[in-house]
């Protein structure tokens, strides 16, 4: 069955709300407005204003309230409209949610799910185009996921809600309208493994969220040049699934990471470091990365495109790695 990413998220949320009275959705304009990405359209009418709770503009406050509600026995899904605004809530996410269990000596768990859209590509300019997945993936105590497929949009919410600890969900804003085939296995989604989306023997492309499809497009083009690119969708950004990454890299002996974050200090750097640590002697060439240019995202379309990773830049990086030139 074909389904959009948005619809997959909607169904997952709907299931959760319908099945567990402890679940509620809270965030700016999730209710009457229908969600700024229309993910929760109709929920306000169906589940009412208590469970589809419109929050005032106060990210620190309502994210903290979600954390508190989780401690109080509920299973809140807090929607921060975009990662850009999550900076305002970071203190509560880090200093309360992430640390709480450890610093209380294991007495309390914080079963909160915090969703946010992320990424650029719609000409929303510097303040509305961030990718801070790597920041969240740095924090012990958090689980960080980035569904990139309709299967994961449909399937990852349930295990996130089942987790006794805080889970951060990144939904790349360009994916909402994307259509995909929902596989029969969607309900088996876990929160610990990366997935090989496309097999290949010559190079490993590692991506997550929005860049997964850029990596896939690059793999397609590389195939037409006789180069087999394996594409790994990380799915889970914390904890990283080293085993899947290393198994692939040991086989292909070459890797390119595709990451929409700014290059310096990107999640790509962490993956490169791990490959260095775990598979150095298996490499035929240094691992490369294709990241966003280190500039605030410009509004103009041609500049935004130039700043972001693109299939062409991935192809170019692979060809360089293989010592070939573009055809």
């Amino acid at each position: 069955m074909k389904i959009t990413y948005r619809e997959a998220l909607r169904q997952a949320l709907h299931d959760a709300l319908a099945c567990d009275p402890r679940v509620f959705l809270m965030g700016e304009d999730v209710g009457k407005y229908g969600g700024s990405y229309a993910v929760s359209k109709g929920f306000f009418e169906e589940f009412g204003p208590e469970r589809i709770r419109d929050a005032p503009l106060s990210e620190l406050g309502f994210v903290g309230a979600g954390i508190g509600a989780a401690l109080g026995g509920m299973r809140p899904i807090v929607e921060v409209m975009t990662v850009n605004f999550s900076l305002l809530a970071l203190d509560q996410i880090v200093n309360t949610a992430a640390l709480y269990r450890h610093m209380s000596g294991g007495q309390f768990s914080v079963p909160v799910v915090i969703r946010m859209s992320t990424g650029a590509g719609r000409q929303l300019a510097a303040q509305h185009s961030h990718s801070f997945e790597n920041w969240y993936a740095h924090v012990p105590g958090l689980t960080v996921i980035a569904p990139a497929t309709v299967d994961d949009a449909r399937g990852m919410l349930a295990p996130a809600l089942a987790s006794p600890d805080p889970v951060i969900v990144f939904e790349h804003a360009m994916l909402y309208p994307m259509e995909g085939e929902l596989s029969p296995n969607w309900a088996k989604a876990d929160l610990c493994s990366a997935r090989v989306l496309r097999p290949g023997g010559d190079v490993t492309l590692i991506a997550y969220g929005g860049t997964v499809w850029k990596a896939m497009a690059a793999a397609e083009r590389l195939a037409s040049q006789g180069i087999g690119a394996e594409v790994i969708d990380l799915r889970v950004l914390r904890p990283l699934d080293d085993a899947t990454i290393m198994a692939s890299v040991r086989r292909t002996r070459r890797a390119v990471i595709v990451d929409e974050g700014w290059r310096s200090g990107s999640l790509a750097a962490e993956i490169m470091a791990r490959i260095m640590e775990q598979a150095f002697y298996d490499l035929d060439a240094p691992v490369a990365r294709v990241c966003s240019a280190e500039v605030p995202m410009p509004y103009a379309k041609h500049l935004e495109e130039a700043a972001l990773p693109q299939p062409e830049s991935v192809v170019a990086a692979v060809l360089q790695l293989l010592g070939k030139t573009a055809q």
Partner: protein
Amino acid sequence: MTSHETAAPKPVPIETGLALAMLRDMVRIRRFEERCADLYGQQKIRGFLHLYIGEEAVGVGAVHALATDDSIVATYREHGHALARGIAAGAIMAEMYGKLEGCSRGRGGSMHLFDAKARLYGGNAIVGGGLPLATGLALAEKMQGGRRATAVFFGEGAVAEGAFHESMNLAALWKLPVVFFCENNLYAMGTALARSESQTDLCAKAASYDVTTARADGMDVVACYEAARDAVNRVRDGAGPVFVEFQTYRYRAHSMFDPDLYRDKAEIEAWKKNGPIHNLTNRLKSEGKLTEQTFLAIDAEAQREVDLAVAFAEEGTWESVDDLARDVHTQAAP
């Protein structure tokens, strides 16, 4: 100016030249933004586009009350403020096209209009983000012993943000020359004021910081001007910040992505009957200060200005991709 003052029932007298200038600006903004909406449909303008249509009296009245060297900090809904401030319509339109000739080199788009000469400190897409910034501009002014005011515009939705609270407190505590211009259009995206604030009397809220407050009919540009002028004078005299609530309404959806399903059509229609351009035109006509012919001439000139702005934007150039990283940092002087 006392706390919680509301607009006088009887029209405040206004000098005709100023009234006509404000009328002209409101018409310019209206025509400019109507065209923006068209251009968005044509995909000439992209990204987020937030229209000010219906709220023109607020920005126009307030900006006219400022001196040209006062500073302005605005939101993502700032075309009106930029136009009223005298920034060329062509530079604004070119910005929304993403052209190099835009007032932010095409890097900012609709939400990030900047103009150093006009002391327009943006266009800010973080709700409440401009409030600390404005507080700091006013702090610098005070420390330098100047008499310039800083005006910061923000929606009623921003009042729930911690940034509002912290900025009000700093400004009041340090008696900074900043005017807080709250554009209360009753909705923050789809969230009505009463669904986001336990206290819907925004002046009462602001007064709790021990700042002077005032309230003005945001559909009456003269009332807006008067309230803003009093506030700016007070601030300039070193009496500390002033908070002004403008009661207004946006006729269009929040942004071009908004299906606008959270408001009654009847409510929108009722507010449209109370339009700011309509109100001022009626008043001036009834006072014999405006003829239909003059109004049509103003309108025609505004349309022409918009046409020229679009032509300017169309002819604009694209910044070279090689310059992408330019101005991440300040270039060394040559």
